[in-house]
């Protein structure tokens, strides 16, 4: 089963190596890993999508906790959350097919962010299913280049993955 972990870490050099090294060393399978700053400049947040049964997940979580730079881990898989990926796709786009591509872009509420002589770059955000669908739809035009971010995710409503999680909205 796939799990989504939201992990807060100290924003120290090498923290990504520590986490990535832990996964490869212990043979855990990462589907995707994203990392970036948070509202607190000393703290980064990783979203790790990892494959494994409950026992594996328990070990992953415990081993991650042993890293001194890891501050907090939330397995949000079974909670209500919002998740997003971003993809950039460069497709072949002669004048003849541009209209058709624009339609697809509209349907997925994606955007065209670059127009070249024979190519377009399309930007799309959404959950994994939507991203997969948009890529599938664009395939027939010839995908020249593709880059996607991996998942970021956040709990809905009054639940938080932050340092002071009891904080309430006023």
């Amino acid at each position, binding site marked *: 089963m796939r799990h989504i972990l939201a992990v807060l*870490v*100290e924003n120290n*050099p*090498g923290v990504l*190596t*520590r986490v990535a*090294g832990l996964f490869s*060393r212990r043979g855990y399978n990462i589907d995707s890993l994203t990392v970036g700053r948070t509202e607190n400049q000393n703290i980064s947040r990783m979203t790790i999508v990892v494959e494994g049964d409950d*026992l594996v997940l*328990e*070990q992953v979580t*415990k*081993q991650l*906790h*042993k*890293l*001194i*730079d*890891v*501050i*907090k881990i939330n397995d949000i898989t079974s909670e209500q959350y919002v998740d997003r990926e971003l993809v950039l796709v460069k497709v072949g786009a002669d004048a003849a097919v541009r209209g058709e591509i624009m339609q697809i872009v509209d349907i997925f509420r994606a955007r065209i962010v670059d127009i070249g002589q024979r190519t377009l770059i399309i930007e799309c955000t959404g959950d994994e299913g939507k991203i997969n669908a948009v890529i599938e739809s664009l395939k027939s035009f010839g995908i020249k280049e593709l880059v996607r971010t991996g998942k970021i995710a956040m709990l809905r409503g009054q639940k938080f993955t932050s*340092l002071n999680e009891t904080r309430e909205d006023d």
Partner: protein
Amino acid sequence: MNLSGAQIIVKSLQEEGVEAIFGYPGGQVLEIYDALYHSSLKHYLVRHEQGAAHAADGYARATGKPGVCLATSGPGATNLVTGIATAYMDSVPMVALTGQVPCNLLGKDSFQEADITGITLPITKHNYLVKDVKDLAKTIKEAFHIATTGRPGPVLIDVPKDVSVKKTKFKYPDTTCLKGYKPTLEGNKGQIGVAAKMIAESKRPVLYVGGGVVISGASGELFKLAELTLSPVTTTLMGIGAFPETHPLSLGMLGMHGTKAANYAVSECDLLIAVGARFDDRVTGKLDEFAPSARIVHIDVDPAEIGKNVRVDVPIVGDVKNILVELNSKLEQHLSTNWQDKISEWKAKHPLKYEKNGKLKPQFIVEQIYDVTKGKATIVTEVGQNQMWAAQYYKYTKPRSFISSGGLGTMGYGLPAAIGAKVGCPDSIVIDIAGDGSIQMNIQELATAVHYNIPVIVAILNNNFLGMVRQWQEIFYDRRYSYTDITGPDFVKLAEAYGAMGIRVNDPKEVKPAIKKAIEAKRPVIIDFVVEREENVFPMVPPGGAIHKMLGG
């Protein structure tokens, strides 16, 4: 007052109460050595950095205080690696300091640059590359805190040369603030209650005791628990000394070369109380058949150990000592049942034994060392058969009296670790029980022992074989002794060449006098015991086999 980074290091070590450091100089630690020159901190110059790491480790295991080693960048730092990994596997508190090329040369394949924080990432509890002298004191404070608390382990601090030169105001912090590091020390009261109830209901309990009991200083509490519940006690290699092996409830060691009584008891118990142990494969053998009818209580400070290898019924995370105090307070005196009788029967029926044929037997030598030292020595070992015989045939009664590389099984550990142990406990008799293969891996440290007159005794069980490997070849490879027939120097002459005393023993009758002479010499001694060559360590559980199915013994 402004101090240089190097002076800050020395002052900080003194603030931490460090009394001894083991190290080896070089270009990138010149500043630190200059600061040492002016300080009262005692530094021991080893002959190889691996020796420094093992000596710091032996010091830590013998005293319970963190060991400190120091090396220069590049090859100096990489030479520490085996020693750091050894300490990591056995949860030994250690702080390793390494020099590094100056910050402006980092990442450029500069002369003697090695990414030692990268290299040691998987074998340290944590590590640091300090790029700003202002962070140095805080980093050292954190390093000692991390190394010595929770589940202890080695921490490495890499210090670029310019950081050791630059000056800043020195103030040693009183506390650390690590958001991601808060070891759980108090056990959950509810869980302890559940465990107490299970213990009360159990008809056939066994205490399975690991190094965690030694580390947390809980042997007194363990003793009480064993006597309250009349649970027989078996220890892992790392747990040796946590419970007196002279006690009727002691089963000795379990696992691959454990006693039959221990392995039978674990296989038949209805409750296994694992205390500060981690269900290593050398202990459990075939997992499906390990303690098959037992419920399992697992007490450990490291939550990641719980459920890692076996399913556990009652996990209790926290400091072993705290938990045992609480647990004992909830228990009443048990009465003896036929379980205790059965244990005594197994013990009587299956003692450790070897063939007595008048030849010089390694097991006999270990027994004689026990006799002469009245069980009061600190025994350090190398790795192989020597290690197992040292574990089996000496009766340990005190924690920290058996020092051995368990998790990593590092040949060459014993001599430098013995030096460290003797530095830490100068009043103990320290004996390294060695193989002729292992001793050749760090024999250069004999020079260190002689130089500082650190009177360690090396008892080589010399079989002219890489004995343990030969044993496996004998049993599993039809006696094809592929490259295990090893020669060595004349160890007596070698000892003398180093300025130590050398004694050779061929005859069982000479064993005791030789040990006595070595102890009385009060200087480093090698005793070369020329033993029967193809002796085997028994009993033995074949790798991956069930622990109650043992060969030999």
